């Protein structure tokens, strides 16, 4: 439990909570980028550099921008998003709190089995880009091809869905 982990965790949780709690949708997405960047920093701290930079590239760079564009295209007037009704707040918040309570209880009650893990290495295990590339090209080559196919299908599908009907474009 180092100080850097505490600081990064606080920034990440604050950003994510703001992203889910603010009234203005554009402010939500701006807070979301802070949370995504915090998660990327946590990846870097865990020694997974490639995943950390992928997180910055995909989430901070692409998904957040996409969400901002979607919000700008769907908000005809800059009105704050309506707040949910009080009973819904209570029920949804209770469900989320119960999920967190169960997960935290499971993590704490499994302390023995977690301690049964091998002694933790002080230095992070190495995961260089070369090792990751080797694994992608040998052991994980079939999933890689399938992901390529999935991304192509998603690209075409997103364009087709968002394009609209032919008569509207005339």
């Amino acid at each position: 439990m180092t100080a850097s982990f505490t600081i990064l965790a606080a920034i990440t949780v604050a950003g994510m909570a703001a992203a889910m709690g603010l009234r203005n949708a554009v402010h939500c997405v701006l807070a979301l980028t802070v949370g995504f960047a915090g998660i990327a920093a946590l990846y870097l701290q865990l020694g997974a550099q490639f995943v950390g930079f992928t997180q910055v590239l995909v989430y901070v760079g692409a998904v957040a921008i996409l969400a901002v564009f979607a919000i700008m295209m769907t908000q005809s007037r800059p009105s704050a998003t309506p707040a949910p009704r009080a009973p819904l707040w209570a029920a949804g918040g209770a469900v989320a709190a119960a999920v967190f309570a169960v997960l935290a209880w499971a993590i704490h009650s499994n302390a023995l089995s977690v301690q049964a893990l091998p002694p933790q290495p002080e230095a992070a295990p190495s995961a260089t880009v070369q090792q990751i590339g080797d694994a992608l090209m040998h052991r994980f080559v079939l999933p890689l091809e399938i992901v390529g196919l999935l991304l192509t299908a998603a690209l075409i599908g997103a364009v087709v869905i968002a394009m609209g009907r032919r008569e509207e474009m005339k």
Partner: protein
Amino acid sequence: MNPLQGYLLLSALLFSIGLAGALLRRNAILVLIGIELMLNAANLNFIAFWRYGPVPAALTGIMFTIFSIAVAAAEAAVGLAIILAAYRHSRTTDLDRMDSLKG
């Protein structure tokens, strides 16, 4: 508390925040963002288990996270396109008013 438990607790907290957002927000885009947040919490778990797990040389945690990020990006693109198409039809992204599938 060892470091792995710290990361697991943080991940559980992020998952709960995302779940609360997906359940409570009425803007469809913010619900989608809440789902992305839950996916991110799961990815953080994968990386933490890779770092503190017994066989880090296998790189399985990193591979799973990379593929998960790719699938989540595809999901976000298609989801936002669907929201745009639904908005064009019903002129709203308020989920309480988007209660009909009929055209």
